[in-house]
């Protein structure tokens, strides 16, 4: 076991650093508290001993810092540690006019995601209503099912699900449009990062994965809803959403990513944000 030697003040070599003196008193105080607590469960004597130890610990600690904090000097090296790098070569993604690039270089604007989401919402609704018309002779069937996810008062018959309910239409519309826009935004954010076959991923793979996940757990989450769902049609409507939303998103013009931080773009002058001026910045 080795340690740094306490410094002799007269020693010529190296630098001296002033550090707090080691002390047992905080540990003694803690032991006193612990024994006082243990004594509550066993013997008053133990508690009294613990309290006495605590008082001794407090006094000892006070004298560590009062009237003047106790220190010791430690000798260090004359020179600080050398900082070197083994890898001098640095790869950078350079773009025109920018020395270091922020990835991705291009993204779809937020409006692309919203447009994609809304277009996908229409396609998905059309597919679902087609299912309702074909299977239950009512376009309201899938709408009522969706609305019932969050607004279901009682268990109802298939006939009642096929009827028109204004409150379920409103709930389903809000739910459908909100979710579609959010998923559209997700498509807008993710598709630029999928340079290979984004439509395949967004239009087929993602709906398939989502349907599979829901199929495996819906019986546990909502067994009643699970009984009413036709999974092939569910998958078809998801694919309709994915394909249309994906196609609309990728047809939008991409915009270059902002290559400077927000604070810099906003012209904010703060100690943590610096402009490239060519001269070395002084630390704030």
């Amino acid at each position, binding site marked *: 076991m080795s340690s740094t030697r306490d410094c002799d003040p007269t020693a010529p070599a190296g630098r001296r650093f002033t550090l707090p003196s080691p*002390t047992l008193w905080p540990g003694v*105080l803690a032991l006193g508290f612990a024994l006082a607590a*243990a004594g509550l469960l066993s013997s008053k004597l133990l508690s009294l001993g613990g309290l006495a130890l605590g008082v001794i610990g407090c006094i000892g600690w006070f004298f560590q810092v009062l009237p003047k904090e106790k220190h010791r000097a430690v000798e*260090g*090296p004359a020179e600080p540690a*050398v900082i070197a790098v083994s890898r001098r070569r640095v790869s950078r993604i350079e773009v025109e006019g920018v020395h270091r690039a922020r990835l991705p270089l291009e993204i779809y604007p937020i409006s692309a995601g919203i447009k994609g989401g809304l277009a996908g919402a229409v396609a998905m609704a059309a597919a679902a209503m087609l299912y309702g018309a074909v299977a239950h002779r009512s376009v309201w069937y899938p709408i009522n099912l969706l609305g019932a996810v969050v607004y279901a008062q009682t268990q109802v018959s298939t006939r009642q699900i096929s009827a028109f309910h204004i409150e379920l239409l409103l709930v389903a519309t809000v739910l459908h449009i909100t979710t579609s826009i959010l998923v559209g935004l997700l498509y807008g954010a993710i598709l630029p990062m999928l340079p290979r076959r984004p439509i395949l991923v967004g239009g087929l793979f993602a709906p398939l994965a989502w349907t599979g996940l829901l199929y495996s757990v819906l019986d546990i989450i909502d067994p009643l809803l699970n009984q009413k769902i036709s999974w092939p049609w569910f998958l078809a409507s998801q694919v309709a959403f994915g394909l249309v939303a994906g196609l609309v998103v990728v047809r939008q013009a991409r915009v270059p990513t902002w290559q400077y931080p927000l604070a810099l773009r906003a012209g904010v002058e703060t100690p943590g944000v610096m402009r490239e001026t060519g001269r070395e910045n002084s630390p704030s």
Partner: protein
Amino acid sequence: MASESIALTVHRSPLQVVYEWMATVDHKKIGLMYIVYALLFLVIMGIEAILMRIQLAHSNSTFLSPQVFNRLFTMHGTTGVFFVAMPILFGFANYLVPLMIGARDMAFPRLNAFSFWMTAFGGLLLYASFFAGKGFSQGGIAPDVGWFAYAPLTAPAFSPGHSTDYWTLSLLIAGVGSIGGAVNFIATIISMRCRGMTLSRMPLMAWMSLVMSSLVLVTISPLTAAQLMLMVDRYMGGHFFDTTAGGSVVIWIHFFWIFGHPEVYVLIIPCFGFISEIVPVFSRKAMFGYPAMVAASVGIGFVSLGVWAHHMFTVGMPSYGNAFFVLTTMVVAVPTGIKIFNWLATMWGGKIVFATPMIFCIGFLFQFLIAGLTGIMLATAPFDWQLANSYFVVAHFHYVIVGGILFSIFAAFYYWYPKITGRMLSEMLGKWHFWIFLIGFHLTFDFMHVPGLLGMPRRIYTYEAGRGWETWNMISSIGVIFQAAGILIFVYNMIQSYFRGTIAGNDPWDAWTLEWSTTSPPPEYDFATLPVVRSRRPLWDLKHPDDPDWKYE
């Protein structure tokens, strides 16, 4: 330089070495004591887990009695949260934060020592309950009321003797240590940063320690208050939790979870710091979206204070209460998602080095995502009504605690061990550790979800045959063997590498934060010259003076 080191080396007797460690106020030594202490308790809680998994491996098992099983899951949970996870994270933060912010020590070195000893004695007092039967009056058994000690189970009528009091008092004592540590971290981070290190340049690990400490200050207080109320109930005739005299057991549940849920974030937020330090270094890219990461972490800390009653959907709250806590819990997913996307974006396009710290981080990302998804499932009140108190919940939070927190702690060990000891951990053993532990983790906790879905309640000491739970439980128990093997490899690696590991040098990972600018292990004074910082990657600036970061931040 070598001759200087030899000249400064003096040999000390074992007694002097013991004194040196017991009396130390050096943040690094205190950090190491926290870590070693937590590792010892990790082994103890691991043994408790193994015993429980042996018991549950097959139906109608009589390996453990119901009473012993109750004590084991109580001690396993309490130890894991209060005497393993918290101390180990406090230990890393103690060791690293002053080095990362360019300070010579913590703001209050003596308070730092006091905090450690309070935590240490708290843990010892808890385990003294095992031996109290012969030595102390009345007691003699370990606590058996679960780690959340719901009332009225803790009332004297249902919990005679002192076992519950050991639980209460040990957590009170450890809680004082936690608050002392939190005060110290906040003071250190706010007031002891080196020249040039503005908050916007501070390492994310330091930011996470700041958020974690703030949460500790807010959340330990309700727990302490509840424990004092419980003591009043048990010994001074109080009726806080006595429903027969106008008290309310629900008050205890609220108090406990006002502490308990943010506590999960107290544990996971420093782990976010580990991941945020390690992923950029092994992706060879700067952290993506640093301001968003800070904002998301502060946001998580803030929102986490308003989600506690999602543990109480089955208690019978009003529908508005349920709806509120469903929504606030869902909101946590937003900043958490930001963080996961930012870690992925940091890796994206980088030259990823699949060293052991990095593969543990990748394991964390995958598993923490799944833990978050099952968390969202449980945050949905109707879903929770079906699965509350089932093994699905146990699987979910072990996914957080083991798959998230423990994996990131392993990553931190492999990353900073060279700085702490001056020697590298073996990469080969590290990869063995990772893969074996990963297999064990997934065998145990993936398959643990299924009996939960099939209706197996948590905390039962055995179960009847023919319910469809046997196979899943057997697989879960087999997984523990792999996990234990992984831990053994890890322990062997640490011991073997301490004596025979490759010399690390000051900066073996070619990293960018200040701790790598000093020697390995660092001297008592941390830095021969206090650093001056101009960007979030000060060592990059020093290594690449032709192209420093400060021009672009």
